[in-house]
């Protein structure tokens, strides 16, 4: 059975914003875009920089180092120099609480 873990509350992250959290061994970033929440690993697949130090444009996150872009809904690359996707996590919201699926 899928295990979810509470990581934040809705009020922690305003729309258009993002915040990082530690999930066991992974550093993740929760993005709030268009009223929905998404979770991806906080690491650019190009040079491993923390992608949370970049910025969010709708459903795209832009790495500040070399400009690589990723779709936060799927982790896929939308602009080079990155070529590999970033891992994503399933997110569910129950009331005020944001949960992330672990497996």
């Amino acid at each position, binding site marked *: 059975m899928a*295990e*979810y*873990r*509470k*990581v934040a509350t809705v009020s922690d992250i305003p729309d258009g914003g993002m915040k*990082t*959290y*530690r*999930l*066991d*061994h992974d*550093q993740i970033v929760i993005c709030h875009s268009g009223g929905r929440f998404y979770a991806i690993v906080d690491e650019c697949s190009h*040079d*491993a*920089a*923390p992608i*949370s*130090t970049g910025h969010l444009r709708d459903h795209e996150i832009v790495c*500040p*180092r070399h400009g690589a872009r990723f779709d936060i809904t799927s982790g896929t690359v939308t602009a080079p120099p990155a070529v590999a996707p970033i891992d994503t996590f399933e997110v569910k919201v129950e009331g005020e609480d944001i*949960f992330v699926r672990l497996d």
Partner: protein
Amino acid sequence: MDNDMNTDNANSEYKIPDMAPELMRGPQWLQEKRTLARDAFNSSPLPRRGLHLWRYTDPNRFMVDRASVVDSAYTEDYDAVEKVELRHLEQGRLSGLVTDLGGREINRYGVEKLAEQGILVTSLSEAVGKYKVLVEPYLYRLVNSATGKFEALNGALWNDGIFIYVPRGKSVAKPLHLLREAGRENSAQFPRLLIVVDQGSELTVIDEYGGGSHKMEKGLSYANSAVEIFGMAGSRIRYVNLQRQTSAMNSYLTHRAMLERDANMLTIILAFGGLLNKQNFGAILSGQNAESNMFGLTFGSGHQHFDCHTLQHHAAGQTLSNIDHKVVLRDKARSAYTGLIKIEKNARTCEAYQENRNLLLNKGTRAETIPELEILNEDVRCSHGATIGPIDPMEVFYLSSRGIPYDDAVRMVVGGFVEKTLKQVPDDLRERLRQFVNTRLEKI
């Protein structure tokens, strides 16, 4: 459902309180330095992610709220390790053994013969009072608040450490073994080491860091270590740093060595343990003909994360430095290596070499390598090289096809990868290092 969540801002606001008991330890001059370190720590911001040396490691993970940690006993494994080293001492393979239990208790074994020659091996807390003339000019000179926020944290809160002084013309050829044992879960320790090797003297030190929390769920343990080494004119120093802490431990270490004219130093870095391990090793060549050689071996597995920075700082001309740093990773282990060669404008006819090779044993591992050159004159010879690559499947296949089990075949290939480094180590140290390496390789 588990609601216990670690955010990365858990301790980032921590300030060292004015009345922290560590600030009152030692003589007046030391208390003043501790207070300055406290002020520097409290007033400096946390290094920003993405900045130089913090691009791959989150500084929040080294923030320790001193008020939230407990003093805990060392682990049961320690007794076995101590017994082995005491046996080595009895067999005459060591010149002395010093145990450092989380900075709370320093024990010395077999150092009486060294004392007869005027060689001091003592706790830092004793040395700051008894040997002030030998300690005060050196303590905090190389690793201090100006080095960084976490160095300031150590500078303020170190409880006790080790002081070694080798007077002029004396030799400690057999290794002096320092066994530093971290406490269990939710413990924090701030080990400190000061070594002064006077003119024409020799010293070999094995500085081993072990212990730590055994279960992440119960809590991590933390170490923030500082090592300062001074090699006076014509001295010869061999320093081995062995990191074999548990996989539920975050460890931060800053090492600086200053080498005067004709001094020669060999630094060997064996980074095997810890969950999050950030190390910063540096040699400052301040006198002509000084020479520094560094050999590093990092073995990572599971979720281990290594972040190693090396500095070859040529402050004087006709100096030579060389670094050979090798990394082996498996499972989901990570490594970031950043090596800086810095040559000052007046430091002419220097030679500096740097090599970093990374061997990845499976998909899911990741290595970064960033060579940096800051060379301010043209009359130098420098080179650097870096490789990152997977293990050659043909080599493993060749061995497997001759009946060698897959895991053993991988170990043999890894053994061959690191052998070139071990061959460069002096004969009398090589077998000892090979034991350390083989013990770690068994778990790769």
